[in-house]
């Protein structure tokens, strides 16, 4: 598969970030998943990158020639899934 900058395929579904935008971020110098995120919002939506971070790593690997294993992964932050504030603040989720 070769990636073309005009590709409009959506990579991050939560934030509707296209392949084209990811490729532009890499062209501007992004080399890690977090740098792509800071420039495009890919991975900043409701699922926090569960769907797209691996895809972004693959695109980075393909574009920069680095092996997948050497692409710095995105940071994972709690909570792992969305939790209502009313629940989290009172600690009811631990019951």
């Amino acid at each position, binding site marked *: 598969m070769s990636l073309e900058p005009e590709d409009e395929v959506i990579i991050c579904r939560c*934030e509707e970030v296209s392949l084209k935008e990811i490729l532009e971020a890499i062209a501007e110098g992004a080399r890690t998943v977090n740098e792509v995120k800071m420039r495009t919002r890919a991975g900043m939506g*409701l699922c926090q990158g569960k769907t797209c971070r691996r895809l972004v790593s693959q695109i980075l690997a393909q574009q920069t020639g680095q092996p997948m294993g050497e692409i710095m992964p995105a940071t994972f932050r709690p909570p792992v899934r*969305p939790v209502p*504030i009313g629940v989290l*603040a*009172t600690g009811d989720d631990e019951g």
Partner: protein
Amino acid sequence: MLPDVVVIGGGIVGCSCAYYLAREGVRVCLVEKGNLASGTSRAGQSHIVLWEEPDINLQLEKASRLLYEALAEELPFDIEYRRTGSLALVENAGDWEPFERTVHSLQARGLDCQLLTSTDLCRLEPNLAPDLAGGAYFPEDAQVNPILTTLALAQAAKNMGAEIRPFTEVTGIELSAERKVTAVDTTTGRIPTAIVVNAAGVWSAAIGTMVGLEIPVIPRRGHIIVTEPVPDNLINCKIILAAGYMQTLGATSGVAMSANIQQTHSGNLLLGSSRDFGGFDRTVRPEVIRAQLARNLRFLPALANIHVIRTYAGLRPYSPDLVPIISEGDGVKGFYIATGHEGAGITMAPITGKLISEMITSKAPTVPLEPLSLRRFSHRQEEDRLG
């Protein structure tokens, strides 16, 4: 090719220094040990605040906000700057009088702000708790995306010829026998230079040690909670904070906490604010998150059904008097310092960069420099000893 100035630190303050220096035609090389905006600059909220005490902070903030107006036009991409105004809330009737005095004092010093009764609040923000004592509106306050601002400042500096070197850690600073800066040693090579700007934020004390200067800046942790995007009418004013926020900054032990609700350009809420000292530990503490959410719920009960999607903790460069250090390094020629902004680094980054460029190019400073000097701490130690 010799750079004229080496800036250490690729956060918003370092990038601002690089930008304002490059604009003056100075050749700049900026070194950053990780990515740009990978530390404090990406770990805060979005508020450009104009009403911090003491008076020197107020002056810096007013000057900086004006520079943001210009930056929003000058920078190569959108930094999401908007003049939103901010709303400060007083929870209890007992706290009203001191707050009223503060607002009057700010007004007397020329800041545009107005007191609001509890009835005013209910009308302006129907989703707030109905039993608050009152508040104040600060129409000059604004909002910005700190990460995009950092990247845009760096890009603009680069467009004017600056060199930006990420993943380059400083390992030493070379001085001549007369204690003049001669070079910066880094993990990607030695850079000969006569001038260094230490904009390393929470790491600035370690850079100071390299030239024998004691910079009294330590890391102070702050937690932030990110929610899913919320409807635009949940809060009408995009920055709402408890008036107690300023007291939070003054606390020196335990976990200080205050409500601080900001809706970003993308619709998500950023919920602050807490402060505690835990060295360089950036771990999120669940008990702090819970307590912080409870504080925010107290002021905005409508938060209960909104989902948290992410939490993070970042480190603020704390200086003992909550005033930044924008200064020459006494006794080390060619060494400049821009650090210690605590939670106001985003607000004060533009004026900090401008002041540093004015110092280096021998121009009259926009804001008086004496209250910002590193020297003030040695005077203080002297007074403590004599007192």
